[in-house]
């Protein structure tokens, strides 16, 4: 049988196809994983703190909870209400409703007591100061006598 000679090239094509698929999926991956994610967030970092920004349209302080666990995890959870009293007919229903939870893992521990949160126009802004040990420390170099 001369399939053995055919096979390597076949496998090579498969491998290439596989690679192409991976590449394609990788490009889409970040977007696909966000389908249905709520809320959407941006995370920033400077030397002293992390900053989280989240789109939470329709939410008020009463239906949004923010908690810090394991020193470097921030959980955003709550409930989006629907104003359906059963008397109407929906033509579109794209805005989600119901309970949601999102856990953000930060790359360094934070000081849970000093977290500041601001909720305005459906936009949540968090300032999460880093724990003392996670901040950069400047070491003074003494001049030799």
């Amino acid at each position, binding site marked *: 049988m001369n399939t053995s000679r055919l096979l390597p090239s076949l496998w090579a094509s498969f491998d290439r196809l596989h690679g192409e698929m991976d590449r394609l999926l990788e490009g889409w991956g970040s977007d696909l994983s*966000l389908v249905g*994610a709520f809320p*959407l*967030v*941006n*995370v*920033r*970092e*400077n030397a002293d*703190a*992390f*900053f989280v*920004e989240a*789109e*939470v*349209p*329709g*939410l*008020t302080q009463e239906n949004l909870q923010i908690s810090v666990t394991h020193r470097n995890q921030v959980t955003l959870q709550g409930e989006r209400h*629907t*104003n*359906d009293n059963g*008397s*109407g*007919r*929906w*033509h*579109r*229903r*794209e*805005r*989600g409703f119901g309970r949601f939870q999102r856990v*953000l893992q930060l*790359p360094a521990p934070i000081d849970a007591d000093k977290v500041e949160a601001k909720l305005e*126009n*459906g*936009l949540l*802004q968090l300032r999460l100061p880093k724990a003392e040990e996670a901040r950069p420390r400047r070491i003074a170099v003494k001049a030799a006598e």
Partner: protein
Amino acid sequence: MSELTKNNSTSVVEKPTPVPTRRAVYTPQVDILELPNELVLLVDMPGVVADSVEVQFERGELTVRGQQRVQPLDGKLLVQEFEPGDFYRAFLISQEIAADQISAELKHGVLTVHLPKSAAAQPRRITVKTS
């Protein structure tokens, strides 16, 4: 002396081009609920303030626009799932709407537009008289 009078050969004055906006335009998520006497449109517009919202109704076409105002934050970006942009969405409404009674409000980043049906389109209960 202004620039214009000094150079009197100029008959065409070019207006300064506004800074081109290279902002993203998003399709906001909406709910549309039809009630017996009105249509209610709910539009998610996080980060939008009322004075940047535009609601227009013309010949059965409803257009909503809003500009997201996000304060630029400092620091290095670790995760970015959204970026500041404008919201835009338009619908053709086949119902007869009392255009002069349309109202809109923005609360917690959600725009609510009330589109009352015109009197002719509203359900009317006919009382049946007994003879």
